[in-house]
């Protein structure tokens, strides 16, 4: 077959990208090897050569990865749709600010983001890690090699590939007839970024989370380095700020995910125990456990082994999380897993390799890791910190076990295809039930352990102080818990206990800052984090346990259902207030901008007398797909108070509003019947309906055309020069109520358009169609034109109208004749007035086009006048014009189309939830991260 010479393709990103991926992969392996030998030969003369090779290779690797990222950004910014990646994630309409979001929307991009952060962290370590540079960067380079292998895109056989190359052309990945066209590139268009991801959270959440993931590699690499070199104590000091950094950043990344879910998605909460959320949380939990044993090891010499294990575990859990999210194994059980890429085996290998590396090194060195002969004292800080770390590990194990259920199912199914697979029926309740106890223990431990001392050698001397501070904290926490019970429902005793534990750690740590640290906030990082934890717990109880649907309508009768299925939504008709839970709520209007349709919903809080106490508006939105045909998601809108949030989102829209394709179908299904009206003569419209008893009944509505309007208006109609438009004013009388409708129709060039009117109370849809336009045009053929010759300033009288020739316009508006190249057009301007009152100006045009001439018509609807400029005599400067006035009685009959059973679509179904105390959750969790950051800076200073 002959090779097609394609035109319009830009091929250098593919060439550069392919080369850079391969080169980056090879250089990462080289960096691993060189740093490996540098570590092995440390202290020997050849050490520095190996290290320098390692550095060079790592730098080359970094540049290669940047080149790959650059190539992808180029094809995305330039919208090179011949590339599969660009075709998939960008479109012409996509604003530049979403280019980065589009970049990391897909697996390949997020792998690159991960590697990017490793390169940044690796470069910092190269500068600062000194003796630890060779082993730490050897590990980091090896991790990079594994990640980059995911992008290799090498096919071993037709089915088996290593990695998936992000810089493939569309014609590389599929074979469709389109590629028989040499100029196919000019035909392509992009899919565009998933509209759900088009918000600023998608710009900030992934980079933060991936920096968090990448940063767990550093304590991991230090732990490996410690085991490798056998310097079990020395690595602890340089690694500590990195571990704290990782804890702060990973935690922030997870929180951002929660904030995104809460603010922009309609999950109705910040945490759903979704597998993907769980598996980003678990490494953070083990990392925090590691930080605690790390501190114990630094202060006392205990817990070396557990510190190693926690850091090894954190990174391996990051890999496991990567496997779960990217392999498709979670399938239907998660909302935000990536699409499958066929790299399951490679991901398992990645995870397995580092599991084996960490595990075997640990076993090999196990005997040599220092551990004091004497065990920790029962009354010492280190003992209880260790217990706390075990509790955290326990939490991580439970979450991981439940989250891994789909994996277990897959494994069992591999051996027994008939196996049905287990599922957790109520995931949120399941996780909450167990994590509650973790919260209780952590609350107690983080509070009481602050009053204990490391390496307690004089418990007798400390016991009084310990008892005193613990007693103060306990009693204050009890009081605060009781006070809280007046604000929110605490429910069962477990929640009372948990609330107490939350307050206990808050009070105990505040006491610790004041009594022990003497208000020195620079060293109070741990206290900040623990206070944050306590506040977070109280925030969770307040907002989670006490969240309340206010969008329930008690008037609707409950059917046979059990109480657990409460009504959660209300229906709001446009501009019709609805009462719910002490509020009067009104859906006021909506506007569409791009693919976002924003609804304005007004809330009025009423007191017992029905007076308005407070009024505000929220703006929930519907997100349409990139072609604006269909709703893909609903964005909530939240009214925030210090003490609570009112969270509002649209549960559903009428089908016609949510899906314009469906709307068209429904519109086509309507049966319009034409009624021929005479002006001011009523007709009776009959509609057969079913009564409540199921009997057919005939409803009669009286309708009348009150007037015909030659200058109609409609909100959606934008008049243009040259339009022929007509509207009718109709009145419908049903019993004693009168409804008015003003449908209109217009003709623009060859196209006509109609603006129908929906009458919700009658379920009628009223429209004018082309029939009335034809009538108008027929009437025109009957027009009697008279010829007039005008000179500048001439004035004539026609049927009581004054027509004055006002002047010549050599640059007339092109609406009436569609300007073409080479046109010469002149318009004569006529001012028309009646009894001194100006009715308007008509500008008939004389047009010379391609040697011939045209005389398009001008019309002045206000005076019902029609003009043709038929001749211009340059010698005498006279203009010959044909003028006719239409008759007003052309509408002997007025055809109006009416469809019955056209139901209203101007409503929304709304869900509104109150989250009390949610700000405690945000403030608390943020304080936890701030505490970690404060500790990090302190430890960094300590290093210098």
């Amino acid at each position, binding site marked *: 077959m002959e090779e097609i010479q394609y035109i319009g393709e830009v091929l250098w990103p593919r060439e550069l990208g392919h080369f850079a991926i391969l080169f980056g992969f090879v250089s990462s392996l080289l960096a691993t090897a060189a740093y490996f030998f540098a570590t092995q030969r440390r202290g020997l003369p050849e050490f520095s050569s190996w290290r320098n090779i390692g550095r060079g290779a790592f730098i080359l690797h970094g540049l290669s990865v940047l080149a790959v990222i650059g190539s992808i950004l180029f094809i995305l910014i330039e919208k090179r749709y011949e590339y599969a990646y660009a075709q998939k994630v960008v479109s012409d309409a996509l604003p530049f600010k979403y280019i980065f979001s589009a970049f990391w929307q897909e697996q390949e991009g997020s792998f690159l983001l991960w590697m990017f952060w490793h390169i940044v962290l690796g470069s910092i370590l190269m500068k600062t890690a000194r003796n630890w540079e060779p082993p730490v960067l050897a590990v980091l380079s090896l991790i990079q090699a594994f990640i980059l292998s995911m992008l290799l895109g090498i096919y071993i056989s037709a089915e088996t590939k290593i990695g998936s190359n992000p810089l493939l052309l569309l014609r590389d990945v599929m074979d469709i007839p389109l590629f028989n066209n040499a100029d196919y590139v000019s035909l392509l268009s992009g899919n565009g970024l998933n509209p759900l991801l088009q918000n600023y959270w998608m710009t900030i959440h992934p980079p933060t989370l991936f920096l968090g993931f990448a940063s767990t590699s550093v304590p991991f690499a230090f732990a490996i380095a410690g085991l490798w070199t056998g310097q079990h104590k020395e690595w602890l000091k340089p690694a500590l700020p990195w571990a704290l950094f990782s804890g702060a950043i990973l935690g922030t990344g997870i929180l951002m995910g929660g904030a995104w879910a809460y603010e922009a998605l309609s999950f109705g909460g910040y945490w759903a125990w979704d597998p993907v959320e769980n598996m980003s949380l678990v490494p953070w939990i083990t990392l925090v456990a590691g930080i605690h044993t790390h501190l114990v090891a630094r202060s006392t010499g205990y817990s070396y082994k557990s510190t190693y294990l926690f850091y090894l575990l954190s990174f391996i859990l990051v890999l496991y999380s990567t496997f779960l999210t990217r392999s498709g194994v979670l399938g239907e059980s998660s909302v935000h897993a990536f699409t499958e890429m066929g790299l399951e085996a490679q991901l398992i290998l990645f995870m397995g390799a580092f599991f084996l590396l960490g595990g075997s090194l640990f076993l090999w060195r196990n005997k040599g890791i220092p551990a004091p002969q004497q065990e920790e004292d029962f009354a010492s800080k280190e003992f209880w910190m260790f217990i706390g770390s075990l509790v955290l590990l326990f939490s991580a194990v439970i979450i991981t*076990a439940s989250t891994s259920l789909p994996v277990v199912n897959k494994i069992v199914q591999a051996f027994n295809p008939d196996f049905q697979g287990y599922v957790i029926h109520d995931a949120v309740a399941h996780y909450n039930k167990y994590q509650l106890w973790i919260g209780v223990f952590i609350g107690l431990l983080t509070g009481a352990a602050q009053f204990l001392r490391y390496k307690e050698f004089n418990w007798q001397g400390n016991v009084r102080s310990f008892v005193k501070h613990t007693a103060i904290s306990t009693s204050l926490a009890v009081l605060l818990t009781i006070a809280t019970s007046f604000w929110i429902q605490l429910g069962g005793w477990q929640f009372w206990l948990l609330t107490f534990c939350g307050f206990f750690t808050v009070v105990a740590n505040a006491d610790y800052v004041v009594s022990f640290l003497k208000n020195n906030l620079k060293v109070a990082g741990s206290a900040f984090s623990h206070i944050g934890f306590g506040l977070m717990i109280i925030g969770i109880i307040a907002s989670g346990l006490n969240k309340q649907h206010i969008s329930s309508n008690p008037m609707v009768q409950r059917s046979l259902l059990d109480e657990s299925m409460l009504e959660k939504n209300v229906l709001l008709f446009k501009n019709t207030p609805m009462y719910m839970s002490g509020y009067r709520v009104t859906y006021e209007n909506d506007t569409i901008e791009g693919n976002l349709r924003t609804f304005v919903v007004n809330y009025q809080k009423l007191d017992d007398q029905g007076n308005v106490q407070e009024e505000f508006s929220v703006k929930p939105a519907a997100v349409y797909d990139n072609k604006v045909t269909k709703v893909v998601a609903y964005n909530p809108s939240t009214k925030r108070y210090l003490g609570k949030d009112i969270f509002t989102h649209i549960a559903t829209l009428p089908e016609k509003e949510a899906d314009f394709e469906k709307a068209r179908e429904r519109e086509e299904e309507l049966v319009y019947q034409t009624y021929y009206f005479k002006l001011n003569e009523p007709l009776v419209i009959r509609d057969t309906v079913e009564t409540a008893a199921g009997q057919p009944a005939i409803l009669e509505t009286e309708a009348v055309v009150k007037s015909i309007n030659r200058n109609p208006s409609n909100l959606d109609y934008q008049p243009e020069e040259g339009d022929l438009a007509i509207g009718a004013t109709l009145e419908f009388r049903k019993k004693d109520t009168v409804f008015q409708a003003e449908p209109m129709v217009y003709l623009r060039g060859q196209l006509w358009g109609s603006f129908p009117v929906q009458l919700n109370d009658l379920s009628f849809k009223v429209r004018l169609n082309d029939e009335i336009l034809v009538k108008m045009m027929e009437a025109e053929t009957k027009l009697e034109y008279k010829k007039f010759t005008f000179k500048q300033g001439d004035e004539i009288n026609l049927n009581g109208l004054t027509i004055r020739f006002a002047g010549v316009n050599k640059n007339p508006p092109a609406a009436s004749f569609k300007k073409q190249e080479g046109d010469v057009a002149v318009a004569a301007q006529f001012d028309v007035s009646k009894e001194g009152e100006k009715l308007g100006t008509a500008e008939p045009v004389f047009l010379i086009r391609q040697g011939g001439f045209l005389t398009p018509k001008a019309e002045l609807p206000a005076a019902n006048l029609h003009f043709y400029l038929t001749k211009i005599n340059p010698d005498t400067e006279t203009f010959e014009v044909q003028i006719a006035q239409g008759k007003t009685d052309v509408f002997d009959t007025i055809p109006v189309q009416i469809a019955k059973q056209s139901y209203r679509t101007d409503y929304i179904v709304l869900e509104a939830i109150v989250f009390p105390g949610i700000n405690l959750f945000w403030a608390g969790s943020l304080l936890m991260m701030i505490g970690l950051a404060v500790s990090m800076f302190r430890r960094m200073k300590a290093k210098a």
Partner: protein
Amino acid sequence: MKKIYIVAVVMIAVAIALLTNASKDMSTYANFEVARESGRAVKVNGLLSKDKEMYYNPSENPNYFTFYVKDTKGEERKVVLKAAKPQDFEKSEQIVVTGKMAGDEFIASDVLLKCPSKYKDEEVYIKSGKGT
């Protein structure tokens, strides 16, 4: 014996107790027959019957939506969901409903939809005729 070992033993014991207890939170995907006989809340895995009526009229009741599901054993039942109709419902094929039987109907508190992966034909890639 070291205190740490005591703690470890206690924790492992608690873990075993919890995991045994947690098995109550789990179930296999059931079918309508199991739901009817057990009377408990279960998850039923099945296919959406697209030829049968799906009824949702929010102006009547925004929290009432019914459809039919055929379970893995081929039994077809009307399902009542006391919530708004989920987005893209018609497109889904595989469906998991959580709830219990009430008479002949299955009262669902939750549905989980599995949409077929988008069929990509050539027109997906080509500019649409009108507009930019």
